[in-house]
């Protein structure tokens, strides 16, 4: 038996560990031959040695470790006398590893090739390149065209693939087939920032990543991306976001005058007002903001309910039946002065104003309403002719003018006591002979049109005299105490702002929300749901008793810098009570948006097809 610690060459054969095959006998746990298999896997041990010819004799060459030269010696023809049945050599582990590796290579290549085989419509099957499920918003429109919907190189030939591999890609163009924005598509925030030449023009893929599953949010990005351009060192809303402005969020002047402090502190509380008005409503409103605000549609703002629902009960009587005097038999009002193009001084002047008035009355007496139309034509405001005097009886006016020219009072048929709404001539509420208009109520169309007319004159003429006249007429009409229709009591600021900055502002009769902040968003809805619709509002909106809310509205025209909200500013600390770690989100995108007016191209399907053709 061989000593396993004896490693001398005389007692050991070379084991050829690098040979790809091992003796078949060894594989069967029998004694392997000393020759071992050949390189091709054939048996090398069918004879115990290869005899060597020395002179004319053959000598046995069996090595010592295999027993040394045999007794029989070689056969005469030089063959070994000790032959054996050939074994079947087996691959060694190294060879097996090579084989398995080859199988792995073939399997991978075959699998990729098989999964890439052309599917329906001659398009590549995406299985071998499936980068992950698309988001639900994109999965639908790619269903028919597959990968080619976005990846233009898909379904192209091998050369195109090769070119694409070495060509930078920008899929932005493809995205813009469907998506559109309110400004330059790839500009930061879809807007121009002339002062920031350092800003990059990111592609869609810079921020949005697809193939992350149907529930993946494409729009959610890291806060760190924002800090690329916003170099304010803000790393966290809680830690170092800058404080909100002192007037946040009510920085823009209100268009409607509504004094929360007065209403909640007096009108809805004190008996003298409750007894006079609507006690039930007042008691409800003082405790619950939702009495007046439409909590059902709460979003960025919780808009007030319409006038009819919340204001009319108390304020309708203050409007209906008020009188709007165009002119009296012996004097002009600022409105008739504007028609005649007279400024405040001229209209009040006995000579100038009196002469113009007499002239107008004479013409009306002669031809009825036509002279007024001519005056509007001269001012380029002929559109208002029928609107301003809607419902006016031309004959009645003519008769009144005739009577007044003859020094008589005019009394219409049926008498002046009849309180009809609309235009009339004769004795008015003050006992003067006048052409006047009785207001029908809130949103009276004639009053609206008169305001529109005045604003149209102001916005269209450079004639200082006419502008003075129009300003005088506007202040007269919108006077908060005496103005016809009492419009100015609430709407003065909303109307006048359209005059202060024409073109930028339209007449704002109704409620206009706070400043348009295109890159911020906020929704009252989840806050109201969480905090409750009544007391919850007061968590953030706290009345500021010291604020001089009325100052802005008392000036004519109102000065924007004088506006102070009835409510205290909302500070960042109010938000961070909840929007902090482990309680509620506080990332940038919670309140800020990146894109400006994101939307879709209406014809995106056609555009997409065209771009692919």
């Amino acid at each position, binding site marked *: 038996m061989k000593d*396993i610690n004896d490693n001398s060459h005389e007692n050991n054969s070379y084991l050829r560990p690098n040979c790809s095959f091992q003796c078949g006998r060894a*594989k069967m746990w029998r*004694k392997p031959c000393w020759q071992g298999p050949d390189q091709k896997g054939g048996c090398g041990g069918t004879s115990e040695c290869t005899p060597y010819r020395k002179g004319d004799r053959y000598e046995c060459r069996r090595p010592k470790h295999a027993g040394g030269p045999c007794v029989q010696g070689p056969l005469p023809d030089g063959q070994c006398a000790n032959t054996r049945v050939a074994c079947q050599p087996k691959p060694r*582990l190294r060879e097996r590893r090579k084989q398995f590796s080859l199988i792995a290579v073939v399997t991978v290549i075959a699998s*990729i090739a098989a999964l890439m085989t052309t599917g329906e419509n001659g398009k590549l099957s995406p299985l071998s*390149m*499936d980068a992950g499920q698309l988001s639900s918003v994109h999965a639908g429109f790619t269903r028919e065209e597959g990968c080619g919907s976005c*990846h233009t190189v898909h379904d192209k030939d091998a050369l195109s693939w090769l070119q694409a*591999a070495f060509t930078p890609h920008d899929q932005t163009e493809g995205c813009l087939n469907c998506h559109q924005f309110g400004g330059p598509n790839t500009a930061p925030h879809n807007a121009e920032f002339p002062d920031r030449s350092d800003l990059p023009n990111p592609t869609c893929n810079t*921020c949005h990543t697809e193939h992350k599953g149907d529930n993946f949010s494409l729009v959610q990005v890291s806060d760190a991306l924002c800090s690329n351009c916003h170099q304010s060192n803000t790393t966290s809303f809680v830690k170092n976001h800058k404080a909100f402005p002192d007037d946040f969020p009510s920085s823009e002047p209100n268009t409607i005058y509504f004094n929360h402090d007065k209403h909640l502190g007096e009108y809805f509380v004190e008996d003298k007002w409750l007894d006079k008005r609507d006690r039930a409503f007042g008691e409800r409103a003082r405790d619950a903001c939702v009495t007046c605000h439409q909590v059902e549609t709460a979003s960025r703002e919780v808009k007030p309910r319409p006038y009819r629902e919340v204001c009319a009960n108390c304020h309708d009587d203050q409007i209906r039946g008020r009188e709007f005097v165009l002119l009296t038999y012996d004097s002009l009002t600022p409105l008739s002065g504007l028609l005649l193009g007279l400024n405040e001084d001229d209209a009040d002047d006995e000579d100038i104003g009196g002469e113009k008035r007499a002239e107008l009355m004479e013409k009306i007496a002669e031809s009825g309403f036509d002279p007024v139309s001519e005056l509007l034509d001269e001012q380029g405001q002929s559109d208002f002719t029928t609107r301003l005097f809607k419902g006016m009886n031309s004959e009645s006016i003519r008769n009144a003018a005739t009577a007044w020219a003859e020094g008589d009072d005019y009394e219409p048929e049926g008498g002046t006591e009849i309180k009809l709404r609309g235009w009339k001539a004769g004795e008015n509420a003050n006992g003067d002979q006048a052409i006047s208009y009785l207001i029908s109520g809130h949103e009276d169309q004639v009053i609206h049109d008169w305001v529109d007319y005045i604003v149209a004159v102001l916005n269209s003429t450079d004639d200082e005299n006419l502008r003075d006249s129009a300003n005088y007429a506007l202040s007269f009409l919108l006077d908060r105490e005496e103005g016809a229709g009492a419009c100015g009591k609430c709407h003065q600021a909303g109307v006048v702002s359209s005059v202060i900055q024409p073109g930028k502002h339209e007449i704002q009769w109704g409620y206009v929300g706070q400043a348009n902040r295109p890159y911020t968003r906020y929704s009252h809805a989840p806050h109201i749901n969480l905090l409750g619709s009544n007391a919850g509002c007061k968590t953030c909106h706290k009345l500021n008793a010291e604020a001089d809310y009325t100052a802005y509205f008392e000036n004519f025209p109102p000065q924007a810098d004088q506006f102070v909200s009835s409510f205290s500013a909302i500070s960042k600390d109010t938000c961070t009570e909840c929007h902090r770690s482990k309680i509620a989100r506080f990332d940038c995108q919670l309140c800020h948006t990146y894109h400006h007016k994101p939307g879709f191209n209406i014809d995106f399907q056609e555009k997409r097809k065209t771009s692919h053709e």
Partner: protein
Amino acid sequence: MASIPAILLKQRNWAPYAILAGIMVALFVATALSSTYLAHHLGDPAYVTGYTLFGFMVFLIIFNIRKRLSMLPIFKVRWWTPLHVASGILVIALFWLHTGTLWPGGLYEQAIAIIFYLVSLSGLYGYMVLRVYPGWLTQTGIEVIYEEVPAIVADYREEAERLILECTKETRSDTLARYYTETLDWFFRRPHFIINHLLGGRKGIHWVNQHISTARRYLNDTEREYLDKLNDLASKKNRIDFHFAIQSMMKLWLLFHVPVSVALFLLSLWHLLLVNVYSL
């Protein structure tokens, strides 16, 4: 036999390994910082993590080629091995950094992930094998060339059979011969108790002892002398079995690790191509 954790931690000189670990940690941190920088600066972090990952995968593959080119003086294998192991562990971290998840979404990416995890697990298992088993082999007190095991087993079998024949002739009793045929012959045919040996168990030697002691009570003194020689032979054979089992595992894990690594490399290459064709 020392416990596996103790062997894994046993190291005469920690300094080079600590330096190597430090380098790998530094490389990972550098890659992570670069990726974070890109992510924060409108870049594509997958670009840097992906190419770093692929680079290290190429380096890991080169280890196999290096072993074949033993004539080239490109560092010693004793340096390549820890580098390979350290790089392998780094690559696992880079893979997670690159994918950002333990389990990616796409079918193809999932296929890569499966193969990657198989390669990683087999690599970690191989590292454990290479750290633990050599110590166990040393503790046997003998050195056995793996390729010689069949010849040694055949030698022992022949010796055992020779002893049985000699005993039968000398004692003119076939008790030991019959007992050998019924029990020990199976043991000498080929290596046995492979799994038990791999787990560091002593089932083989217990089996031998049990059968030797069972036979002893039926034998006379002369036969017992032969039984003692057989016992000695069986003990040696058991140690050869142990060597065979351990050395086989030290080679067999590569039978899985290398082909799967090759598959992973090809899949990664295809992934790289697709990414460049479709999105980069």
